[in-house]
């Protein structure tokens, strides 16, 4: 029986979590990581934590746009149009 999987220890397994979520592991690495996870509740908890960080980051709302900031940007657009229509004149 040929050795199909590398045996992973936890210290090495945790370094694969992000690439695993990215789908960036080779077939062989993915299989040995998944096999390790099946037997290791701590590394499963670790992966779940990395995954929940990614999920919560995606949910974070940016701050509110203030009326002043919005007015400033509308000014930027107005000035740009004025410049451009100025350029177009003969």
């Amino acid at each position, binding site marked *: 029986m040929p050795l199909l999987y590398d045996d992973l220890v936890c210290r090495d397994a945790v370094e694969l979590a*992000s690439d695993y979520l990215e789908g960036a592991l080779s077939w062989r690495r993915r299989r040995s990581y998944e096999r390790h996870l099946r037997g290791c509740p701590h590394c499963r908890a670790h992966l779940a934590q990395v995954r929940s960080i990614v999920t919560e980051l995606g949910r*974070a709302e940016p701050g509110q746009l203030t009326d002043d900031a919005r007015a400033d940007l509308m000014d*930027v657009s107005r000035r740009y149009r004025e410049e451009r229509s100025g350029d177009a004149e003969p």
Partner: protein
Amino acid sequence: MDDAELIARPRRGDEAAFGSLVTAHQPAMLRLAGALLTSRALAEEATQEAWVGMLRGLDRFEGRASLKTWLYAILVNRARTIAARERRTVPFDHTDDARAEDPARFAADGSWTQAPVPFTDEVGERLDHAPLVARLAPALDVLPPAQRIIVTLRDIEGLSSDDVCAMLEITPANQRVLLHRARAGLRRSIEASLKRDG
């Protein structure tokens, strides 16, 4: 309204359409510029320049990228120009092969000495993510700049790996290493903060 329509109207000089683009994208653009420049004033300058860049480039926008990706690419470009001017350029190359997780967490045989500290409170059947959410922003603040920028683009703004590599002119392998370090760094700070609070 789809991207093509949102773009066509400011192109015709429609102020209201420009305003709705600003409302939709400026808060996230300011957050992203903040990650790139770490100064509120410079971040605001970068977003202003990005909007002017967008208006200038409208006629060349071909709709091959999404509007958001295109806008963010302009913003990243402007922010990096400003960073260079201010001598705050962030290097994205990584040269060391250090582990992202703390080796002290593992015994000589490579197994955990102690389980990861749980991030969630179990409230009856439900998991409460509040302890994690409250700790994310301070954990982001202490990440090295290159890692913070990558994790902001990928996990907060939701851009693809390909888009981020193109914007920052880095290789996919480099991007993956930085993203891995960033996520691991966040996990470690959150865990450390939970331990401190007991």
